[in-house]
């Protein structure tokens, strides 16, 4: 009977990001472990894609999660989402690292103090889950012409400007601008589509 009761036990919902951030603000390292297990593969994948070097990627991943740990109190009262914040900080840190090595001029908007509330999802209540969003992003990108896809990737992963991309792809500046904006607007539509 005892074992039957165990097997009939309803499946426990994993804790939400918000609940974990509450615990993080109370210095609960188990919450940090859970958040790390939830996001480290995506964050490490992103950083590795930009840095192309494992040691650097590891250092930046640790830096990003430590910032989360140290600034957890900032997130407790925020309605913002954690995932876009993590992605954005991870990208900016990695591009900054590359810029340090190459001494390139800073171009991103990270002079702003980014806060989770500064990421507004189109409709948070009906947002598709992480897995399906990832599929939609990849599928939409694959549907774009190769050059347009390349332009967006150069901007996101290489931190290049419109002019630099136009030069790299040997395309007109106006074309590159419209490719990037057009691609992102299509991405927004794809992500906003009802379930």
């Amino acid at each position, binding site marked *: 009977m*005892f074992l039957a009761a*165990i097997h009939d*036990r309803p499946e*426990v919902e*994993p804790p939400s990001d918000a609940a974990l951030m509450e615990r993080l603000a109370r210095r609960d*390292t188990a919450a*940090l*472990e859970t958040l*790390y*297990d939830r996001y*480290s*593969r*995506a964050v*490490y994948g992103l950083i*590795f*894609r930009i840095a192309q070097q494992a040691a650097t990627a*590891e250092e930046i*991943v*640790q830096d990003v*999660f*430590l910032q989360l740990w*140290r600034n957890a109190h900032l997130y407790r009262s925020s309605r913002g*989402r954690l995932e*876009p*914040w993590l992605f*954005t900080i991870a*990208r900016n840190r990695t*591009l900054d690292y590359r810029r*340090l*090595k190459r*001494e390139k*001029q*800073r*171009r*991103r*908007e990270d*002079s702003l*103090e*980014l806060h989770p509330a500064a*990421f*507004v*999802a*189109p409709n948070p209540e009906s947002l598709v889950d992480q897995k399906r*969003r*990832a599929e939609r*992003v990849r599928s939409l*990108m694959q549907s774009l012409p190769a050059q347009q896809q390349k332009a*967006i*990737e150069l*901007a996101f*992963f290489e*931190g290049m400007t*419109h*002019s630099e991309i136009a030069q790299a792809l040997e395309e007109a500046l106006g074309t590159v*601008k419209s490719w*990037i*904006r057009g691609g*992102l*607007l299509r*991405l927004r539509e794809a992500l906003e589509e009802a379930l």
Partner: protein
Amino acid sequence: MTGCEQIKELYEAYVLGALDAQDREIVEAHLTTGCAACAAEIDRARWLVSQLAYLAPKREPPAALRTRLLEAAGGRTQEEPRGWMPGWAWATAAALVLISLFSTYQARQYQGEVARLQTELERERQRQRSLEAERRTSEQALAILSASGTRELSLKPQTTAWPEMRAFWNPNRGVLIAGNQIPAPPGDRTFQLWVVPKTGDPISAGIFRPDAAGKVLAVSSVVMEMAGTSALAISEEPAGGLPQPTKDKIRWVGPLT
């Protein structure tokens, strides 16, 4: 003044960091007017652009990274069960609880001793972590000081009451900051080291606090050629540091002349 209509086509590229200087200045000038409508659109664009991260394939980070993170966060250092427990694990846990009920009397006798040993163990672990961190810092400091091409800089205090700090900078190994009798920043605030490039915004190179005796020995692994740099600076910032220095909180500056 630029209107919302003129910049609405720039929201996404602005957040992406793809705007050339002129367009970027147009957006920033408009945002400084406090336009709530455009600020809201920028927030939407920020979320959208963040989703491009899914284009990068997920990768499993090395297990050691998880351990290092938890050590750095001051948490547990040993590998522990991850995720949700399968059914058999619940059964095992329940069985252990039953067994423990039979052993309550004996266990109570040992509780005091176990608690004392655990406290001692935790204290010893903390001491080891602290010693390990000190050892790493000393090794890095020595590597910077003994490397060829290391340059010494004087960091001048912005208030005469404070002592000067020294920086030892090696373009391949990082920066060592050293100082004595440095007043601690109030509360949980921190000092933050900045590399100030000749063009562009300052780059954070780490945070630190003096020890109880006012001694500073901090190492940043920032790697950068000096040719593109105009100065090192140290500001006082909230706990955890900020992405950019607070202008009226710059405490020390060391120009590269």
